[in-house]
């Protein structure tokens, strides 16, 4: 499977559209307003609330940033950064001062009009005393916020960050009405194209079109959206097949073929940044030797893992965390292939003739991690590497195994920008650097890239960083895992869906329409 799934799907759609237009039908009908859109979604919890700081799974992300709320910027289906509540933005040359021009004429669902105060109050929610926001690191990089006018805000950052406009597209940083935040959290009051009708945490949510939305003609086409929490993968597939819902997320890989056979169901498959990893704590022997790490990278049969663990719904990884949904993904970087001879060679460089290592795995790390470990064990044995599989309990995996055991299985959903990803898990000394790996050149490139506004130069910097990760880093990244969702032909989209998250970046309610 190639990496450019989205491009290929786009080509296929274009070809189909061509065939249709020959038959005298329009390629893709213009978006239509009205209709009900029902989604069967996983990832719901009885603890769900409208507080976007706590949103961590698909149910609430789709309902929050995807329906009821809006963020300053958003990543479009094509992967470009566009304004949502911000009209435009500009940076000082050192990327330290960012000025955002906000949209005018925007109203909250309770009638309050939107302005600079709301942005400042919403940002402050993440850093207030006792707040438990996952977006805290983003917001705490802001030294000072200034309201220049009612519709202009200036952010002074502690250090230059070229990615800042990307970071504020994060689904945690939804804009709430200043002064009414508690009320807005209790009832779900935002500026989004849908307002809340009913919400039963862990069961369902129902929203209806907000007529006073600033762009009611071009986003949020449905008259109402109902989202039902369906935790069981087979139940989701059933619901779609019996037309109880119009779209589902996280299609079980085993059901894809079955669903694909239905003429009125479309599979949406994109390769994004989600990747499975095997991080080694490089402070521990034998992983402290770069040659051992390289040997282990050559000892894994990536294609086999993609074929057997992901049933082909993925792509091979190249030992760095940057994926096809990233702007500066180096797709032309030479791929590390399965090569027992090279693995042996690097073992010899390390002064070893064979290697015995423990690999801690659990299906709590990612689905199929135990099987992946066994494949690794098998492919490694040809290179004289004896991998001992240690099965860990899924319960408490992230607190007891990850970051603690010398070598384990792990996954990352990836980040929208290179800097964000690297500084979350690869920068020297950050808490989630799950290998403890430090590299001087990498670190200086990271700081240089962060404040660099020139895209050409950034491309070079991030390419080199991906290369360093691949060759020296402590993480084996065997594969990218696709987002596989499905929809019925009762709903339509523009022909391209985003690959940053599932279901068109979890923005399908705002972007799709009834056929």
């Amino acid at each position, binding site marked *: 499977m190639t990496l450019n799934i989205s491009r290929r799907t786009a080509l296929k759609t274009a070809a189909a559209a061509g065939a249709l237009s020959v038959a005298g039908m329009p390629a893709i009908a213009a978006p239509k307003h009205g209709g009900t859109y029902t989604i069967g979604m996983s990832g719901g*919890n009885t603890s769900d609330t409208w507080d976007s700081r706590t949103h961590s799974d698909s149910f609430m992300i789709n309902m929050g940033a995807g329906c009821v709320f809006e963020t300053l910027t958003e990543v479009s289906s094509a992967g470009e950064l566009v304004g949502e509540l911000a009209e435009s933005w500009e940076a000082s040359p050192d990327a330290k001062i960012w000025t955002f021009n906000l949209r005018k004429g925007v109203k909250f669902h309770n009638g309050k009009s939107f302005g600079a105060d709301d942005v400042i109050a919403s940002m402050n929610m993440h850093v207030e005393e006792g707040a438990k926001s996952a977006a805290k690191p983003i917001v705490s990089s802001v030294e000072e916020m200034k309201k220049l006018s009612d519709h202009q805000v200036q952010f002074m950052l502690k250090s230059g960050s070229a990615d800042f406009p990307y970071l504020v597209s994060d689904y945690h940083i939804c804009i709430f009405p200043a002064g009414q935040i508690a009320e807005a959290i209790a009832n779900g009051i935002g500026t989004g194209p849908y307002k809340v009708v009913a919400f039963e945490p862990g069961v369902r949510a129902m929203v209806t079109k907000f007529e006073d939305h600033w762009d009611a003609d071009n986003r949020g086409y449905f008259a109402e959206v109902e989202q039902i929490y369906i935790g069981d993968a087979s139940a989701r597939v059933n619901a779609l097949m019996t037309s109880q819902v119009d779209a589902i997320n996280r299609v079980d890989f085993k059901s894809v073929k079955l669903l694909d056979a239905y003429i009125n169901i479309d599979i949406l498959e994109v390769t994004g940044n989600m990747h499975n990893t095997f991080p080694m704590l490089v402070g521990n022997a034998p992983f402290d030797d770069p040659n051992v790490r390289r040997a282990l990278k050559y000892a894994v049969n990536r294609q086999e893992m993609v074929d057997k663990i992901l049933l082909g719904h993925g792509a091979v990884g190249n030992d760095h965390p940057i994926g096809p949904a990233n702007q500066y993904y180096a797709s032309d970087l030479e791929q590390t292939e399965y090569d027992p001879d090279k693995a042996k060679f690097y073992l010899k460089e390390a002064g070893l003739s064979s290697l015995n290592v423990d690999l801690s795995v659990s299906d709590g790390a990612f689905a199929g991690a135990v099987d992946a470990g066994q494949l690794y064990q098998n492919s490694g044995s040809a290179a004289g590497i004896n991998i001992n599989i240690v099965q860990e309990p899924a319960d408490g995996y992230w607190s007891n195994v990850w970051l603690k055991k010398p070598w384990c299985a792990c996954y990352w959903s990836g980040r929208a920008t290179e800097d964000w990803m690297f500084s979350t898990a690869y920068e020297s000394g950050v808490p989630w650097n799950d290998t403890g790996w430090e590299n001087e050149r990498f670190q200086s490139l990271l700081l240089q890239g962060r404040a660099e506004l020139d895209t050409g130069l950034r491309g070079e910097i991030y390419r080199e960083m991906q290369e360093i990760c691949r060759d020296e880093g402590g993480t084996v990244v065997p594969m990218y895992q696709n987002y596989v969702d499905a929809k019925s032909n009762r709903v339509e989209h523009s022909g391209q869906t985003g690959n940053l998250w599932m279901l068109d970046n979890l923005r399908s309610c705002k972007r799709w329409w009834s056929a």
Partner: protein
Amino acid sequence: MNNVALIISKRLGLGVLTMFMVSIIIFLAVNMLPGDFAQALLGQSATPEAVEAIRRDLGLSKPIHTRYFDWLVGALQFDFGTSFAKANFSSYAGTSSTANFGTVADQIAPRFANTLFLAAVTACIAVPLSLLIGVLAALYRYSIFDRIANVSTLTSISSPEFFVAYVLILVLAVLNPVFPSLSNIHDGMDFAQKLQKTMLPALTLTLVVTAHMMRMTRAAIINLLASPYIEMARLKGLSPFRIILFHALPNALAPIINVIALNLAYLITGVVVVEVVFVYPGVGQLFVDSVKIRDIPVVQACCLVFAAAYISLNLLADVMSILSNPRLRLPK
């Protein structure tokens, strides 16, 4: 009559004692669950400070016996506390009052009502059906009908619930779209809509519980058919149907009532799998979701509700069989 009152009050006393024991077991067991709420809530994105902040807010640091008695006293007044998830949420929001977000009791009540609804619908189908089949099977025992009834009910009880559920979905939702495969009932629906949505899970459960009740009915009646007074009735020239309905059945009621009560208890406490397959918002799903996020107050309250349902239905069965049996009702 005093005797009956004594027997019943003894049973009730035993029931209360059992509940007390169960409450201790529930509390200890739930507290021994591995992992903790803060980490389960934050998942991989848990930073140590966030975890610490949540634990502190929830008072998880108090000694276990203090927490138990606080909980028990509350539970006796139907106050199961505030769900961790909600309490945590209110601390995020910075609003001081948790009253806005409801208590555990508020959270469980609508779910429990849904579960009772499903149990009631199922019971309305399953109880008459299995009694009827049971009586007919006893009447025409060893006939083709008896064998078919036995084999088919035993087959459905022997298959895992989810398998029965999927077969029904295939037949009644996919191939012949009679009933919806999703049973997501909610308050906005009227009774007929709810009934339609509930039909598939109710039918699944019917298939699961029928065999037990039907076979007990059949066995109890057949057992009695060998007794002399039935022979007398037969010699009087009564019709077989009349013999079974008016002479045998009343005497077979005690074991039948017992098995019906057990199955009703099962319909309330054992339907988790069916609820998950049909996405039915009952208390079983709430229970599973709460275990998933270690929402201890909700888990404890659900366990207690389950235990109470089980114990009270068993008590009811005991009392009913005492009342239906003259030998127990009027001891010498």
